[in-house]
């Protein structure tokens, strides 16, 4: 019937994805951000957390100002004399790192829980899904706040809070998708062949459950980053030793009124660009991977 | 006097993959009180023909050429607003699946009354009266209760009767029925066909009945047009056409009806598949599946009239001596 050979699903997805220029822009931006974030020590003009390189006399200079040893503060400096551009690069690193780590862990946990629930069914599934539903009926920020209030501060506590907030969403999506797949014939066939349960789960069920997960995970990274930024802004997030973009913005809040907007504005823009790019990519992925919109 | 005349209608769909000629030079006419059957397989263009007449063809589709005359006036010349005034009033349509065409969250009376109020300057109570009468005419008992119901509370046959009632509300001149009984069981089907036939005669409404089911046509239509790949390949009075088909496709269709089969014999089929409308080759669209095809079929056959009442698009009609090679 069709003349072309069967093309790999990956190629088809990539081709469909490329149909939206906006999404491509998002993807390009994202890659750029990733490069900058991972290579922060290499691309930053200054290491803003090496106290030896800072000079308090350089503080609160507007964008374009010169430091005492001739370095240009392209985006200005903050109240400690740190170069905003460098602080943003390092901040990106931390924000992205924390967000991605939390998402990946939450994904793994949610995946495992969802698969177990869908596969075993019965009361196991009922109990798990009740817990999931209960957690999902509360807004993420509340859960995170209460957890942090009880656990205290620290990078690891934040990651735990972020994971706790996210895993239930994955679990529910995975279980839903797995339920649909479980009733399909190829699973029945695999069971008839007496393949072991883990094998069926991982080699057969998992690949078919993956597409909606990819979409959700992408958008959830953005959500995690935003949540971490919010928590840091509220003073409950990252400690001052590893400032994420949220903390940078919080630092600049007090200077907003005196007109030194750059301390808050540029980290905010960096955060904005990151989240928007991720959402653009995630949006297009969702449209492309949605079976109901298949042309 | 012909109420509806379709002349050389062409509706094409301009898709990314190419131009799909869903309706490619279709012509027919229907008189008041008569039923015209439009027969064809899925993809033959019969539904798009109906939509074209109603002016409901959506992009990427477009009516490219032709005329559609309702009581002498060309509908294709009308503005959108004028067309909207005619739809549901002078010309109405019944769809295939009443569950999907009736809005599930609105009551039956709401959906009927709004049809009246859109076209007639009457009060709500008068509109309800008209609705109640219409339900009575299609044979729905205790119409008051039914009117307060929601679509999913009615059976399939009942819903389709409601759809027919809605079509009749404003006494249209033409009703286009697009496979209205396909989704129903055979007994209900028979009832509805009977009701419709009776109503058409009583009210003098012209009907175009689109279907793929020849047995429905046999019991209902006064005239038949057979469509294939966007063109009408044969047309004429029902009894004459079914008894003496002239186009090989028509003959194949008739032969493939299971009830005509001898017990124990393999079911007769037309070999091959309907061609993709994207990649139509020039010439007769049926020639790849026709046992009588030869080089002459590579030019698109023109319409001929072997008898005054019959029209045909074939260079090797069945009235000729046998040409087929399969034997």
């Amino acid at each position, binding site marked *: 019937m069709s003349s072309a050979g069967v093309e790999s699903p990956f190629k088809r997805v990539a081709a469909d994805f490329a149909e939206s220029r*906006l999404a491509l822009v998002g993807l390009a931006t994202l890659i750029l951000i990733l490069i900058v974030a991972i290579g922060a020590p290499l691309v930053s003009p200054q290491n803003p957390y090496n106290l030896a390189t800072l000079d308090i006399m350089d503080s609160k200079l507007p964008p374009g100002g010169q430091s005492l040893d001739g370095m240009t503060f392209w985006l200005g400096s903050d109240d400690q004399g740190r170069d905003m551009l460098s602080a943003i690069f390092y901040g990106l690193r931390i924000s992205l790192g924390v967000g991605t780590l939390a998402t990946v862990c939450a994904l793994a946990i949610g995946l495992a829980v969802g698969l177990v629930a869908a596969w075993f069914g019965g009361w196991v599934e009922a109990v798990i899904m009740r817990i999931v539903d209960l957690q999902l009926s509360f807004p993420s920020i*509340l859960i995170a706040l209460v957890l942090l209030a009880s656990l205290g501060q620290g990078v690891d506590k934040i990651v735990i809070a972020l994971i706790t907030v996210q895993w239930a969403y994955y679990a529910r999506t995975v279980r839903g998708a797995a339920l649909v797949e479980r009733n399909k014939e190829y699973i029945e066939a695999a069971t008839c062949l007496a393949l072991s349960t883990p094998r069926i789960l991982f080699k057969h069920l998992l690949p078919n459950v993956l597409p909606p997960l990819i979409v959700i995970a992408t958008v959830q990274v953005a959500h995690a980053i935003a949540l971490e930024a919010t928590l840091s*802004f509220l003073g*409950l997030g990252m400690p001052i030793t590893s400032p994420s973009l949220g903390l940078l913005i919080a630092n600049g809040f007090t200077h*907003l009124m005196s007109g030194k907007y750059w301390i808050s504005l540029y980290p905010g823009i960096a955060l904005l660009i990151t989240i928007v790019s991720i959402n653009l990519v995630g949006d297009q992925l969702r449209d492309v991977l949605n079976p109901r919109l298949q042309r | 006097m012909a109420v509806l005349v379709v002349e050389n209608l062409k509706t094409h769909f301009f898709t990314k993959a190419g131009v799909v000629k869903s309706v490619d030079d279709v012509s027919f006419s229907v008189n008041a009180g008569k039923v015209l059957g439009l027969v064809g397989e899925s993809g033959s263009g019969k539904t798009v023909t109906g939509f074209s007449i109603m002016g409901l063809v959506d992009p990427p589709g477009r009516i490219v050429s032709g005329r559609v005359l309702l009581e002498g006036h060309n509908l294709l010349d009308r503005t959108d607003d004028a067309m909207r005034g005619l739809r549901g009033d002078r010309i109405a349509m019944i769809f295939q699946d009443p569950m999907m065409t009736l809005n599930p969250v609105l009551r039956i009376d709401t959906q009927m009354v709004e049809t009246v109020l859109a076209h007639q300057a009457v009060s709500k109570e008068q509109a309800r009266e008209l609705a109640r009468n219409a339900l009575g005419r299609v044979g729905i008992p205790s119409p008051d209760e039914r009117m307060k119901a929601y679509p999913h509370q009615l059976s399939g046959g009942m819903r389709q009767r409601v759809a027919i009632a809605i079509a009749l509300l404003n006494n249209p001149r033409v009703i286009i029925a697009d496979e209205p009984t396909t989704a129903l069981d055979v007994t209900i089907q028979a009832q509805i066909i009977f009701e419709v036939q009776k109503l058409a005669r009583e009210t003098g409404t012209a009907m175009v009945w689109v279907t793929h089911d020849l047995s429905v046509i046999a019991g209902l239509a006064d005239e038949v047009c057979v469509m294939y790949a966007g063109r009408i390949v044969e047309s004429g009075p029902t009894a004459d056409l079914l008894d003496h088909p002239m186009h090989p496709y028509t003959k194949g269709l008739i032969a493939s009806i299971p009830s005509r089969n001898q017990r124990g014999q393999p079911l007769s089929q037309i070999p091959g598949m309907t061609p993709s409308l994207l990649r139509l080759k020039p010439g007769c669209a049926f020639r790849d599946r026709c046992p009588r095809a030869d080089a002459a079929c590579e030019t698109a056959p023109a319409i001929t009239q072997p008898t005054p009442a019959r029209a045909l698009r074939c260079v090797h009609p069945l009235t000729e001596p046998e040409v087929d090679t399969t034997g």
Partner: protein
Amino acid sequence: MLVFIIRRMLQSLIALLVMSVLIFVGVFAIGNPIDILINPQADQAEIARATAALGLDKPMWVQYWEFLQHALAGDLGRSFSHNIPAVQLIFERMPATVELALCAMLMAIVLGIPLGLVAGMKPDTWYSKAIMAGSIFGFSLPTFWVGLMLIMVFSVYLGWLPSTGRGHTTVLFGVPVSFLNWDGIMHLMMPALNLALFKLSLLIRLTRAGTREAMLQDYVKFARAKGLSMRRIVGVHVLKNILIPIVTVIGLEFGSLIAFAIVTETIFAWPGMGKLLIDSINVLDRPVIVAYVLIIVCLFVVINLLVDLLYSMLDPRVRLAEAKA
């Protein structure tokens, strides 16, 4: 119908009970329970006295029972920093938060649904695409950052709107409200807009998706075949169909709106429950934290129940299915 209501209420009560157990266990298991109930500055002797007086040497389930009794009587401890019962403190601050949340929800609905309808009806026009692009920004921008930018633009540079506090309030049915006087409204605008932005974007996207799907349905084509005006088709046929999931979302999101008010209130120094929570976390005023969580949980359960009822009222198919069951 009545059976349905009773059944849902029972389920809600059970959910509430379970949550209270969880909170109790969580609070009392994670930290030293005495910390919850006593000023962190207390000395050893006081701690010992309080431990005995508060019955913290009793077994866990006895403590839970007493906790429950106190809770049902409305006693959830006293705030350290304010020295009034925690419940009273929270209820004092609640009207401000609820007013903010209601205002934000109203803004989101009044702007979001029409914009979404427009975007859904003609998805390929430039303005439709602009609306969608805008909505992506709307839910990508972290609320706190938008708040900062709003303050920067409207307070610092333009000087049009005040950036902190609630302004003048008038009393309505014994509750202080802001929207009845101009000064109050000026103070209300930015926080409400800030809070509304996320939901607005969400509603736009939801309405658009629903409208797009609805426009492809057969009943829309049938309505056109009946000769109905576009206004009626969209305003009655399409809207009623898409409203059902949207109302559900709005209802459920209202609770999250109250939670996200925490951020907005902090930025704009709006004297509501959210700001109270942050302040309490910062000074370790634990009775208030516990009280806040419990009250919010109750609120959520009530909201979920109301949404369920509303859903069944709007969708005749659900109502009748329940009646048969």
